[in-house]
């Protein structure tokens, strides 16, 4: 599709013609043409290598999530245990990526302070840092944004899971209430049977039995209530934790964005700073001439006064 728009061939022909007109030798020409065809592998700084490695790991995380997505979401494919496993793995992975990004970020910071400490007086070096620093911040920002989008994807899956879990709990609560009246009903049958068998002489024993049963009933009910409340609090916790992963990464991304913007501003400020410095130097030299003139005039006036009086 881009055959017409690609002018690279025309460009290379033009370069060949220009090289001939500039008097390149055959070997130089051959080297030039060869360098077009085969790019010499760009030397990559350590920073870039680390950044690319982090990118690879984020991509792998994404692939992992995509692979297990169906398992995770579908209700009948996996057990709760396996789902927890998946979550745990993903969390570990995310933490590793986050740490790598943090390392990269601190590295920029260290290189920056180190560079500025050494070259306070050499403005040129500082200037060449500003763009590079901004670029590195940009790289780190892109990485953390990517991580954020991947974790947001995973959080969506998680919220689906929680919805299912909560829906399952809701009907369970209704089911719970039903056995209670049933058990009550069965418990009230027993005293009736007891009554039929015993004569009136054993009423006190009956009453004790009744008391015991009532107490047992109470205990069971309170147990049930506790269990239900515990489930509910767990639900609250889980829904609160729902966004935890992605918000942490978001925070990190925001921090990095802040740094990035500062770095970009720094590149502008360096240019302005250079202008101000050159102006200051000019003013400095002009004030020097003025001072010289002043002293000369002063000397002459003293000599004049001396001669006069």
């Amino acid at each position, binding site marked *: *599709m*881009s*055959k*017409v*728009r*690609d*002018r*690279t061939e*025309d*460009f290379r022909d*033009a*370069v060949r*013609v*220009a*090289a001939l*007109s*500039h008097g*390149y030798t055959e070997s130089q020409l051959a080297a*030039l043409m060869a*360098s*077009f065809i085969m*790019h010499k592998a*760009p*030397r*990559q*700084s350590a920073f*870039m290598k680390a*950044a*690319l490695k982090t*990118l*690879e790991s984020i*991509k792998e995380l994404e692939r992992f999530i995509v692979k297990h997505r169906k398992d995770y979401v579908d209700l009948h494919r996996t057990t709760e245990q396996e789902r927890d496993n998946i979550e745990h793995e993903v969390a570990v992975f995310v933490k590793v990526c986050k740490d790598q990004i943090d390392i990269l970020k601190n590295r920029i910071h260290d290189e920056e302070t180190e560079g500025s400490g050494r070259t306070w007086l050499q403005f040129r070096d500082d*200037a*060449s*840092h*500003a*763009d*590079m620093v*901004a*670029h590195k911040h*940009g*790289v780190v*920002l*892109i990485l953390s*944004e*990517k991580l954020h*989008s991947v974790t947001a994807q995973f959080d969506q899956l998680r919220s689906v899971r929680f919805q299912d879990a*909560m829906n399952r*709990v*809701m009907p369970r609560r209704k089911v719970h209430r039903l056995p209670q009246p049933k058990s009550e009903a069965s418990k009230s049958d027993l005293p009736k049977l007891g009554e039929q068998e015993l004569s009136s002489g054993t009423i006190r024993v009956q009453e004790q039995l009744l008391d015991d049963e009532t107490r047992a009933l109470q205990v069971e009910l309170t147990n049930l209530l506790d269990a239900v*409340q515990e489930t*509910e609090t767990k*639900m*609250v916790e889980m*829904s609160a934790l*729902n*966004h935890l992963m992605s918000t942490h990464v978001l925070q990190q991304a925001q921090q990095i964005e802040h740094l990035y913007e500062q770095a*970009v501003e720094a*590149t502008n400020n360096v*240019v302005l700073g250079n202008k101000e410095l050159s102006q200051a130097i000019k003013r400095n030299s002009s004030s020097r001439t003025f001072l010289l003139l002043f002293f000369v005039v002063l000397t002459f006036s003293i000599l004049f006064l001396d001669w006069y009086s």
Partner: protein
Amino acid sequence: MALNLRQKQTSLIVRMLNLNQSPSPGGGISSSSSAAAPTTAEGEEVYKILIMDGFCRSILSPLIRVNDLRSHGVTLFFGIDKERQRVPDVPALYFVRPTPENVDRIAADASRALYDSLHLNFSSSLPRPLLDRLASRLVESGAADRVSRVFDQYLEFVSLEDALFSLAQPRTYVHINDPAAGDREIEEIVERIVGGLFCVLATLGVVPVIRCARGGPAEMVASALDARLRDHLLAKPNLFSEGGGMAASFQRPVLCIFDRNFELAVGIQHDWSYRPLVHDVLDLKLNRVTLPGEKTAVKSYELDDSDPFWAANSWSPFPKVAEEIETQLSKYKQDVDEVNQRTGGKDGVEFDGTDLIGNTKHLMNAVNSLPELTERKKMIDKHTNIATVLLGHIKERSLDGYCDCENDMLVKGSVDRSMLLGLLRGKGTKEDKLRLAITYLLSFETPPPAELEQIETALRESEVDMYAFQYVKRIKSLNTSFAASSASASRGNIVDWAEKLYGQSISAVTAGVKNLLSAGRQLALTRTVEALMEGKPNPEVDSYLFFDPRAPRTGSGAQFKGPFREAIVFMIGGGNYVEYRSLVELGQRSQPAKHVIYGATEILNGVEFVQQLTELGQKMGLGGGGLTQSQ
């Protein structure tokens, strides 16, 4: 298939940002999705630096935001004139116009070894001499191997909306109508326009049928474009075979080229709808509006299709817009209250156990819907601010009076003299008064001289420059084919006759009926485009020239004038949102729905256009003093 210019341009730019490697999966990516990963064939060229010049920056700014740039792997972007420093081991992506200065700058950058490899993208075709110049400079400095690839992108136009584009060539109207312009200058301008139009057609991937009026710059542009397309089609493969064989004639669009002098009134009048008002009063440029805020903080807002309120209400009249903002605000407040209530807002709310799960569900919904609510609030705030500033201006300049007066003159052909003179002497900036006076001139074939005298004295009293006024008078006397007035004159006759016979009531009724039938007046441009698209014999358009780049040069062949489903309308000299709106409405109300794309050399509001007219008047040497009407 509807031609969507903006989407096509965006997908081409995205491809460019990915260093022109194989297109990313998923076809056209709209500018609002930012989830595209930097998919590249080699994993090493993921991060890049983008360097643009001023023109290309204005091309990119309505299409892509800075955050989206990051999602394509662009870490930094700079202007080409800025002092830049070394950033090793990244490729640099240049997107510039093919001018000699840019070429020199690129060569300088390459020799300073600022970046590892350079990918050059020129916004239109790089001519051979410039290519040779670039090559020789690079060979001199020995840095020729740093340039990896060179591309011609054919993207030298700004697409503001899906169906609206501008070539961003300022002051074309002045240059073309300049009495002192020589042939060579006019040819240069025509070349530039043809270049821009060629880029538009290349991006769309269609070869249209060209129609234009006889004589004037439209004919020059049409014939030059026809020649260029023919030459290009001879080479195979060419840009237009990329589109995948859409050569069937019933799919081809028609390209109608018009000159601004065809209908001057539209460029000048005040309009009462939201979008033209913002454009006029607040100076909407590249979908961006800058408002002076309180405490000298300048706020700038972005207004484009991604803003749902703007998309829904940009053609409604201003009072309705204010109402809409009110309703949106109350709906928003309602939603916020609901969310607060459900999640137990601030005052103590029953937190009974049975409702706990319901509460957590509501809490989750609330957390999910919070970002959406904040977005809505921001949008409402933005429009409230804009509407407030607009209202201030309208009150100050009594723009509603101007709109009504001009509308009466152009649609009904009648004028309320006292109101006209009152406005001319009353509130309003000088440009407003001038525009009103020029609209008066344009709406009547032969205005009665006494009235004209009155208007001129009123203008002079308000110290308004008379250049533009005199210029339009001169043009009118020279050029009698102002199509706009003919339609309104006939309507005016009917109404006058009715008024004479039956008094005021009938005229009021007919006026009301007219308002019901036509929501805005029918522009001459729209009528002509409709006629051209229909293809039926029509006295107005039969005299229009016909060019078909695909037909063989010799022999007439069958001239396909039949009904077209799609049209591209191009205005030389200055386009307008009012015209855009009427063309969009034309597309919507015809059945089956047709699709019209509108473009111009630049999008002007009334103030700027009047400035250009003033300039022309000055060049013509028409004095500011009174000239008796020469007729």
